């Protein structure tokens, strides 16, 4: 885990904490979420939101353990280590996939080895599909859930031109698809709302459905974000705000209650 993520200038917190708090604030009291593999930032975000502004938020740990409230977060977000305090262990085929297809679960977060401006992701191959330079794990559930879940959140701790590309080598997971009304034309609900990175927060421009700079983390410039992105970054009208500062209470709860062992650092 090397030296860990850097301190955020002027915010009394580190980058991982800023990302978790930003994710948490994007959740609401009617969020009904679950999580997949290697999803430490969202898992911390759900736990924090539930302890602050969204007490009724539903989180199914590993997509299985409804209302789990683990004392710590372990080495895997698909592990039974996370299931303490759950009120139900949902069965995958009968319960989980039905809740997902019916959008009873309304929130999912995923990341990919590559992400494009419309919030589609690649976790399958780098290079030509039949003779890849790198065979990645595969899309798993993201190809499914990207099509089913209305509120999609993306995150990345590696905001650079290799990750943020104009053209994916393979589209494993659906975001806004080709942009515009593509997603709606396929009958899919909602779509990606935010992409939270180690440099900034993107939202999606309503007409094109391409990433648009919503806020900059302290010390990061518009030019930095553009240089780290392999596509043209859309800008909002007027000044780009700074990503909001985490409160002392949010940081305390994250550090002492949600993730006291710092599992979130596994993503850095």
């Amino acid at each position, binding site marked *: 885990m090397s030296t860990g993520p850097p301190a955020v200038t002027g915010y009394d917190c580190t980058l991982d904490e800023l990302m978790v708090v930003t994710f948490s604030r994007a959740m609401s009291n009617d969020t009904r979420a679950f999580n997949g593999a290697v999803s430490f930032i969202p898992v911390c975000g759900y736990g924090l939101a539930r302890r602050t502004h969204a007490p009724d938020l539903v989180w199914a740990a590993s997509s299985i353990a409804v209302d789990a409230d683990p004392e710590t977060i372990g080495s895997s977000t*698909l592990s039974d280590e996370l299931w303490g305090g759950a009120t139900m262990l949902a069965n995958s085929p009968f319960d989980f996939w039905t809740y997902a297809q019916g959008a009873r679960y309304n929130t999912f977060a995923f990341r990919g080895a590559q992400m494009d401006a419309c919030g589609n992701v690649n976790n399958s191959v780098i290079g030509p599909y039949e003779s890849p330079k790198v065979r990645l794990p595969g899309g798993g*559930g993201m190809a499914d859930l990207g099509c089913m879940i209305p509120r999609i959140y993306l995150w990345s701790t590696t905001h650079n031109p290799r990750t943020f590309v104009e053209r994916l080598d393979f589209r494993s997971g659906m975001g806004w698809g080709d942009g515009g009304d593509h997603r709606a034309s396929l009958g899919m609900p909602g779509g990606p709302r935010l992409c939270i990175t180690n440099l900034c927060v993107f939202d999606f421009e309503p007409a094109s459905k391409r990433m648009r700079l919503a806020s900059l983390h302290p010390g990061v410039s518009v030019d930095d974000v553009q240089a780290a992105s392999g596509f043209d970054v859309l800008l909002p009208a007027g000044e780009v705000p700074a990503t909001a500062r985490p409160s002392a209470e949010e940081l305390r709860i994250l550090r002492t209650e949600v993730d006291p062992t710092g599992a979130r650092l596994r993503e850095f």
Partner: protein
Amino acid sequence: MTGLVSKQISLAEAAASVPDGATVALGGLSMNSAPMAFVRELVRADKRDLTLVTIVAGMCVDWLAAAGCASRVVAGLVSLEGFGLAPHFRHAAQSGKVKMEEYSEHLLICRLQAQARRLPFMPTVAGLGTDVPALHTASGALRVETDAVTGRPYVACTPLAVDVAVVHTHEADVAGNARVNPKLIWMDSEIVNAADRTIVTTERIAEGASFSAEPHRTTYPRFMVDAVCEAPRGAFPTSCFPDYGHHSGFFEDYLAACGSPADFADFFERRVVGPATWADFLAANGVQPAGGDGGEISS
């Protein structure tokens, strides 16, 4: 009635019953409940040309890729999760020794359901708009279609034939009744229902009467199960909730050994393939088999 004929066989006999070239579906999900004791015997039996069907898998596929047992992997995702990529699977897929036939989880579930229910296809919206369905258009396994009445697009998932499914359970009787305790969590029922034949590995052989005493807790009835193998702590190094968690130390040692072929050959022989029995394997990895009480085992 729990049946008169015992279906209990050894792990080695179960592995021997799988011919080279077979399509073998493995249960569990990622770090959880994979039938590792059985997979180890496939490796020891030096199987060849297997097609593996695994919805979300990790270590089990990496062992079989390392040993050259598999030529095709039909899966949604293969990784060692928080520990990293599955190195032997990755290299075998990149070099073409193993063909990765990639689906998403739900596309694979739907193919298995179509097979289980003897339907021409199961529809789903999963994968629409992604590049995944196009991987399977030429073979005809998936078709993107539009419903003539509603105009809604869907993916038609055609049946996926499976020769044998192997799933890990907490308790089974010798007739083949089996239960996952507290309840089935992962997608194992989908592969069991699709397969021509099912092998159950189990933490404990239980009395048949225990199933009639608590019939609401039975996961697989004996007519769905063809063979039962006792394998205490049989999912090691993956978990078997709530009896034991995944064994982080094994994952870390395994990945550390993957740094050099010589180190890995030594590790694989000492810690995986070499031990003669499952009990010897557990001893070689410094863990105890589960006791009969199903109590918590620390890893």
